């Protein structure tokens, strides 16, 4: 049989290789939708572009403030009300404050699901400081001895046991008395 025939058979096999999907699966998944979905930070293209350029958040904020001041000086009427700038400032402060935070309930839902499935997973989210982006919310042990660590800023990293201990030690050092 040549490759063309194999391709023909594969095209035919796809639609025929199917089975009924459990009818309650969709509803079951919907029941697990977290109370608050993780919101996308700020849909401000400038901010996103700067983040994409991998500049730190403080540099990004400084660049935006300088750009706003320059624009105001160049084009703005000095006597005009400062409402626009104030609003932008408020947005900026909001962004600054919320950047790096995630909705814990989404991670908690995932934790509960993994736990239910019998995975070796540990939750720390109840006592860590969610403002600390390096705080560990949970870790999941894999069979090859490595761990998947979920941090408070939402990113995940696969680490070995030594690195996990380092993260935990760091977290304990930062824990307030």
């Amino acid at each position, binding site marked *: 049989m040549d490759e063309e025939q194999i391709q*023909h*058979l*594969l*095209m035919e096999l796809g639609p025929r290789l199917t089975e009924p999907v459990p009818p309650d699966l969709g509803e079951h*998944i919907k029941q697990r*939708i977290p109370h608050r979905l*993780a919101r996308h930070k700020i849909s401000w293209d400038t901010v996103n572009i700067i983040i994409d350029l991998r500049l730190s958040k403080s540099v990004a904020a400084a660049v935006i403030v300088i750009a706003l001041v320059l624009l105001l000086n160049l084009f703005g009427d000095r006597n005009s009300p400062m409402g626009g700038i104030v609003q932008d400032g408020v947005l900026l402060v909001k962004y600054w404050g919320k950047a790096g935070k995630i909705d814990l309930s*989404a991670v908690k839902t995932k934790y509960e699901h993994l736990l239910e499935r019998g995975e070796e997973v540990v939750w720390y989210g109840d006592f860590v400081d969610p403002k600390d982006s390096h705080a560990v919310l949970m870790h999941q042990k*894999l069979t090859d001895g490595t761990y998947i660590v979920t941090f408070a800023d939402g990113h995940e990293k696969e680490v070995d046991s030594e690195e996990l201990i380092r993260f935990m030690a760091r977290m304990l050092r930062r824990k307030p008395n």
Partner: protein
Amino acid sequence: MKEKAKLAEQNADGTYPKNKPRPSGDSKEPLEQKRHALVARLKAGDRAAASDLVDEYYQQIYLFMRRLGHDRQSSEDLTQEVFFNAWHHIGQLKDERALNSWLYRIASNVSNLYWRRHKHKEVIGIENINAPEVSTGRNDEFGHYEQLEQLNYAVARLPVKLKQTVVLHYMQQLTIAEAAQVAGIRQGTFKSRLNRALKALRKRVT
């Protein structure tokens, strides 16, 4: 000759022959708009959008898992995990048009991680192939069905990466561009992986 031309067309631009039931150009635009709106609502934290996402994709993600060889229970669990990850990381989806391939990419990662965690678990994909709607009862039809069964068995025994390549393109009917995006590789690399898979299948199917 016509058949060959169709296959050549597919190889050239990564699309299916024109007589295949693919989404038509007319219906593609509203679908894209719908997806665009869905992603925007998800990014705004709309729970109803999360529910719509499930409605639109849970069946294809479940079948994707089954076609990758996960058993029924694992496929259900992994499908759920795909949506948890999607809700959690929706902010990382830059291009709204890529929702489809983004979701499949999550599904592939979830599946790969599962195979890493359960290296020795048996592959139990969909074993029963649906018979054609109109049966003539001819002998060559029976032979053809046997070939399909052989091929299904051979696909199930391909190495994970090659199997994923075949399932994405031929069974989930993603274009070469979409499937390459899902696999996180260039289109050329995807095509060569596809060729390797076809060669391996050719050896195993008589």
